[in-house]
């Protein structure tokens, strides 16, 4: 019997690690490109002021890279200890992408990172510039492989479960790589990282301007690059967000319903622009879904299915079924899942007894219901619904912040281009206070993706509760607090070192 407390602590520990790790990642993804663009301007124009700008932001990039280096490895440790069933189950699929990531990250980043930092005046300007670009491309390619693996968990394709080994085995590499969930997730995540980095540069530059007007030229150059980059990537992020929603609608309809607090499905479903969920609302009851809401008509049907009047399934439809729209109930899927598990059991038993005919017939039965296997481990149909409040509010706050970043980029770019940056302190303050919001939006996006797919570790195949290792809850609790302390210490170190560097720069030209 699985201890639910153990599952919760293992979950909390993994979430904590991922959240801290993901504070460092977005800045690495985006700042590397911003620095590369700045250096390109230096090399193409020969203007040494661009070199000064490049060196400063490169320093901050280096601090973030160094402090954040290898924080993600902790998650891999956790896989082996807390999630042994899961890591065995997915090992064959994850092995290839993660091995490629390791090789790419190691060779590209470690080689060219050194040239980027040690190479000024030691290699030619062009080779140095190439190294900076390769570091940016390398760090982004590392993210690709991790997100291919994550995309597979959200939509497991190109695989077949092997009952002999208890592993999901890859049968089509290209299907795994070109899984729409994977590439949409990759594009949406990296563009979110680019925006976060653009806001980081804009916010610190705004602080320079608020403190010392003599920093105007430096700040203006930084803001011009960051806002141009941020504006393009903001627009692109909206596009990739739309694609992500589309793939979620196709493959994870319960997540989409939770993101929108949609209990009862409808044709031409609206998107909630702003809403307060009814906290007493339960699946299947007649209470109102929202205490208050402002909606955009038909927008969810367009977002999810690219059709004005498409039927969007609600959580009730997906749990209890809807014959009219051909939606199978979770209870029916659980029934099929149980058949898959029973067939698996029969197969193992027949193999043990050496009854080949029985084993092959059990295997055929298993294959018939294989895609429902995970449902066989669920206790009740309602379990397929993720925590609605967290998913809904995280999603809406993320979208709201995305819109704010788009506006901020336009305004700051306009001000930088018209030379009016120092004229309105309100916008400078708004830009400065937006600094943590970029990081917050990334974390919220991650919460939507991961909390929204509960109860699954691997969609439809492996529930989280079956993915955990049977270990002592106390040891997971201890390591949870150990990480909380360790990662907080690292974060404080990063903030302190960065703040010192920024303050030193802010004091220049006074």
């Amino acid at each position: 019997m699985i201890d639910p407390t153990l599952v919760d602590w293992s979950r909390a520990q993994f979430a904590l690690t991922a959240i801290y790790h993901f504070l460092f990642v977005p800045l690495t993804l985006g700042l590397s490109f911003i620095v590369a663009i700045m250096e390109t301007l230096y090399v193409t124009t020969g203007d040494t002021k661009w070199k000064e700008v490049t060196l400063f932001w490169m320093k901050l990039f280096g601090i973030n890279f160094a402090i954040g280096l290898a924080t993600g490895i902790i998650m891999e440790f956790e896989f082996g200890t807390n999630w042994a069933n899961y890591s065995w189950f997915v090992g064959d699929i994850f092995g290839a992408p993660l091995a490629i990531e390791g090789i790419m990250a190691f060779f590209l980043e470690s080689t060219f990172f050194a040239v980027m930092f040690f190479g000024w005046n030691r290699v030619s300007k062009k080779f140095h510039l190439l190294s900076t670009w390769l570091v940016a491309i390398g760090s982004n390619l590392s993210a690709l492989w991790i997100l291919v693996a994550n995309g597979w968990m959200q939509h497991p394709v190109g695989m077949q479960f092997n009952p002999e080994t208890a592993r999901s085995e890859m049968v089509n590499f290209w299907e795994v790589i070109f899984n729409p969930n994977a590439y949409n997730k990759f594009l949406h995540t990296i563009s979110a990282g680019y925006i976060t980095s653009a806001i980081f540069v804009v916010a610190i530059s705004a602080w320079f301007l608020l403190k010392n007007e003599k920093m105007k030229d430096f700040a203006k150059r930084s803001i011009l690059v960051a806002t141009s980059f941020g504006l393009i990537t903001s627009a692109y992020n909206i596009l990739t967000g739309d694609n992500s929603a589309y793939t979620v609608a196709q493959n994870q309809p319960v997540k989409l319903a939770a993101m929108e607090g949609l209990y009862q499905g409808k044709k031409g479903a609206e998107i909630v622009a702003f809403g307060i969920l009814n906290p007493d609302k339960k699946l299947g009851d007649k209470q109102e879904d929202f205490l208050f809401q402002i909606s955009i008509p038909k927008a969810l049907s367009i977002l999810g299915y690219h059709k004005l009047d498409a039927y969007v399934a609600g959580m009730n439809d997906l749990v209890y079924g809807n014959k009219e729209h051909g939606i199978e109930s979770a209870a029916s899927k659980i029934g099929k899942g149980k058949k898959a598990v029973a067939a698996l059991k029969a197969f193992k038993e027949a193999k043990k007894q050496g009854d080949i005919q029985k084993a092959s017939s059990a295997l055929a039965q298993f294959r018939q219901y294989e895609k429902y296997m995970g449902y066989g481990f669920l206790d009740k149909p309602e379990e397929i619904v993720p925590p609605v409040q967290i998913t809904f509010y995280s999603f809406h706050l993320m979208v709201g912040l995305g819109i704010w970043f788009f506006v901020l980029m336009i305004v700051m770019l306009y001000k930088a281009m018209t030379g009016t940056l120092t004229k309105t302190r309100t916008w400078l303050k708004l830009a400065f206070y937006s600094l943590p919001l970029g990081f917050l939006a990334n974390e919220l996006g991650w919460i939507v993706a991961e909390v929204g797919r509960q109860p699954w570790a691997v969609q439809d195949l492996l529930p989280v509760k079956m993915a955990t290792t049977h270990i002592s809850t106390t040891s997971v609790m201890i390591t949870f607090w150990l990480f909380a302390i360790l990662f907080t210490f690292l974060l404080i170190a990063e903030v302190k070192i960065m703040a010192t560097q920024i303050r030193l720069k802010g004091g220049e030209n006074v």
Partner: protein
Amino acid sequence: MKTSITNIIKFYINGFRNMSKLGRKLWLIIAIKLFIFFVVIKMLFFPDILHEKFHSDKERGDYVMKNLLGGEK
């Protein structure tokens, strides 16, 4: 070939030698962090359970399958 390798090695040695105070501090943080991660945390708190408990992939697969089949409702 030999000269190129020597040049690369010299490049790294010079780079580390002429590193700024900030660079040294960051390297120290990296070293402490990697030590804590790989020696303290990995060794003491995060054993790879399937590899420590079992000697072959067959045993590991059987154990996981037993967990899965024992846990269905």
